[in-house]
Structure formats: C-alpha cells, structure tokens
C-alpha cells in the first residue's frame, strides 16, 4: 500500500506539472503578451500619431479620446510633428523603450508624464491636445 500512495503522489505531481505547462502557463503568457503588445510604446505611439493625422481630415469639429490602458501610464512629448511615448510599466518583464512616430500637421509642443488618457480636439484650424490620468 505505501507503494500505491507514492504512485498517487507522483501521478498528482505529473498531472499538475502537465496542467501547468499545457494549460495555465500558455494562457497566462498569451494574456501578458496581448496586454503588453497593446500597451507598448511602439503601438501607442503609432495609434496616437494616426489619430492625430485623422483629426486633420475633419473639416470642422472632431474630438478624439484614446485610452490604451487603465493600468499603464506614459510620458508623452510632442515636438516638431513628432510624438514620443515612453511607457511607465511597473513590472520588470515589460519593454520600457520609447517610440517616436511622426504626423503631418503642426500641433506645437507639449509634454506630460504619468498619463493614459489622450484627448485631441479640432475646431476649425485650432487643435487642442491634452492628456490626463484615468
């Protein structure tokens, strides 16, 4: 009987390891990768620069709100038709590198830290860009 109990113990260990490696870990990793791909500096800078450009195609009034993530905040700078985004991730395994993307209209200069809600407004020829923390 002690042999049987050992067998049950080993079987449980093997079962839990298989479950961990084939079900829990891939699911966890895919969630992490998806989350960080969406909230990475590269993605946020590209999305935001495209939204800035799109706002210029509106002849009159347009308001755009973009919140890439409620958990991750960013440092944002606008200068000479360039947009620089630096993510402020709290976890060690996320990429903290910055991204610079371009857009074709003049928005002036702007800088803000620790924000995740980007608001862009165009009324006629006037653009207003500001950002806050959600």
């Amino acid at each position, binding site marked *: 009987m002690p042999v049987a109990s050992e067998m049950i113990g080993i079987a449980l260990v093997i079962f839990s390891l298989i479950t961990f490696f084939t079900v829990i870990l891939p699911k966890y990793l895919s969630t992490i990768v998806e989350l960080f791909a969406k909230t990475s500096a590269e993605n946020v800078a590209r999305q935001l620069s495209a939204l800035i450009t799109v706002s210029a195609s509106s002849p009159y009034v347009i308001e755009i709100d973009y919140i890439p993530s409620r958990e991750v905040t960013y440092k944002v700078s606008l200068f000479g038709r360039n947009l620089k985004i630096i993510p402020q991730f709290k976890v060690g*395994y*996320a990429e903290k590198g910055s991204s610079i993307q371009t857009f*074709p209209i003049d928005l002036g200069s702007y800088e803000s830290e620790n924000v995740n809600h980007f608001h862009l407004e165009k009324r006629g020829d006037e653009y207003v860009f500001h950002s806050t923390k959600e």
Partner: protein
Amino acid sequence: MFFIQQKSKGLAITLSFILGALFSVGVLGLIFWLLISRILEIHVAVAEYTNERHSINLANVLISHKKLAYEDEGKIIRGILDSEKIEKVFVKEEEFLSNIFSPTQETIDVGYPNSVAIVRIVDLEECSNEKCKSWVTNLYGPISIQGLHVVKYLNCLKEHIKIDQGLIFRLTFTGLLGFWQPLDLANCVANNIPPTIKAFFTKQQIAYQGLPVLIRYPDGTLHVGRIFVVLSEFL
C-alpha cells in the same frame, strides 16, 4: 487491530499526498519566479506598411483641406475638390518637372517630417489617347533630427543595452554585439527601418489605388477623379 492498521494507512497516504503537493507547488513556484524575474522579457515589433498607411492618411487629410476642397456657402465639402483651388496649388502634370525647382504655386503646410510626398490628382472623365488630365505637386515636411530613422535606431540601441549575468557569455561569442540580446537588435531594426527601404524590399505598392474624389469645375460640372499620394521618407 484492523481499525488501527486502516488508520495508519490513511495517515501514510495523506502525508505522501501533502508532500507531493507541496513539492509540485514548490517546483511550479520556482518556475514561475524564474520566468517572471529572469527569463520573460516582452518586446514588441510592429509589422505594418508604414508608407502605405501614411500615404492613405495624407490623402484623407488633403481631400478635406480648405485649400483644395470645394466650399458650398462657406461649408467645406469633403471629397469634392475645386478645380480652381487645385490650379492654385498644383501644376499640370506636363509642367511638373519644369516647375519643381522654381515653384510658383501656393503650398499646403501638410507633410510628415523628413519626407517628400508627390500628390497627383487625375480627372478620369477628361481623357484622350489613354492620357487623363492631371495635376501634380509635392509636399515637404520639416526636417527633424529626432524623427530620423537612423537616430531612432541609435536611440533604440541605447535603450536596450543589456548589462546582466549573460553579458560575459555574449561578449565572448559575439564581441561588442554582446551588449544587446539578439531579439532586441532584431526589434530595433523591425521598428525603425525606413518605410521607403522596407517598401523596396517587400515590393509594396504605395497607395496604388489612391482615393476617389469628385472634381468640381467653375461651370458646376462634377467629374470623377482620384487622388494619389506617393510618400518617400528619408533615412
């Protein structure tokens, strides 16, 4: 006696189970800790046709620009271009090359930094000998050092220098390249390669189809046309 034996058997199974479970929890915890703190690193490389996206976006901006779009009682009509306004900003296609170094036309202050865009508007209803009436102009963006792809690439390398336990191993086998992990180097290239060079290697068509527009002439007639934007971004 039988009862006591059963009781001790039950105790043996429970202990074995607890030890096995604790062992497995310990192993999983160790793997998880190693993964999060030492192994897992997430880097994002975006695969997109930047040139094409920028061309389409620029064309969208132009078809509602007040220097090109037709105005009806002071209201800009997006997608309908005024031929008189076009004549002020664009030159006829056959005059484009002679006009390129001494432009006499008005300019539109729209353009990506470090780029040149050639914009062509074609009237598809006024064609003869398979050649349609068309106007051309070029748009320049401002020069921006920080927006240069070379500078962005160098910035990316600077931000991804890795000084960790594996540095000596990497330096031994790859020399100075050991300061970076191979995936970091690949991502810096993928994210910062100039779109014009990328388009050349991927044989990408740059906004090949253009956007449909209507061209309104002074007599009120509307012609079907297209606006094409070909964008070239510098290094």
